[in-house]
């Protein structure tokens, strides 16, 4: 698209949308929202960028290599955190049973493994959205 106004407005608004998505991911355990919703918002900000500025510029922002790494290691991250329970001698994916400090409820570092898992799931969902979008747009050519 070659619309001047649209591009200027997007350059002002989109960074805030992206940061808001990360805010929702990081605060998924203390406020409404969560990793799935936050991941969708982050992915949408990149999708909006590629729709407005063109698919090539969007691909430069998020190269294929980064997306592949986010895809595969986001999934692996969950399993690695689950192994913490096994190392401590309790069931897979155990949180409080594993003796992890829960912190004060409402603080950003509360919830033990939950916030860490949430970050992985959020990145995972965002990269899924962006990968699907890029792949579909590739087909159009």
């Amino acid at each position: 698209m070659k619309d001047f106004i649209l591009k200027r407005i997007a350059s002002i608004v989109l960074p805030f949308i992206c940061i808001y998505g990360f805010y929702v991911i990081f605060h998924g355990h203390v406020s409404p929202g969560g990793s799935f919703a936050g991941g969708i918002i982050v992915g949408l900000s990149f999708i909006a960028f590629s729709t407005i500025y063109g698919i090539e510029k969007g691909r430069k922002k998020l190269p294929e290599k980064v997306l592949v790494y986010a895809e595969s290691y986001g999934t692996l991250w969950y399993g690695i955190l689950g192994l913490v329970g096994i190392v401590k001698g309790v069931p897979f994916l155990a949180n409080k049973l594993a003796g992890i400090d829960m912190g004060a409820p409402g603080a950003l570092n509360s919830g033990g493994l939950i916030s860490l898992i949430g970050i992985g799931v959020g990145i995972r969902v965002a990269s899924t959205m962006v990968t699907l979008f890029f792949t579909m747009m590739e087909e159009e050519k």
Partner: protein
Amino acid sequence: MKLRVRNLIILVFVSVTIYGMLLMIAELPPYGMPDNPVHNEVSVRYINEALEETGVLNMVTSIVLDYRAYDTMFETIVLFTAVLAVVITVRASNGKEKGK
């Protein structure tokens, strides 16, 4: 003639299945009643103990990422598989067109 017999058998099977399903639906408890078996001690346990057991204020997150952690883990694997399938399918069809 053969086709008709086969269609008749399929019709009988489908009718019996639908009849059985309708019988099961008739046995279901009325929707939204407080003494339904759905409203058991599990939800009460979540409401009362979620904060103490997980240290998380958002109860939905505590259920999704702690009590039901296995479910969410395989959900992310489902997402991974879906993306993999789409990428493989689209890339393969693109390559075929280029090869021609």
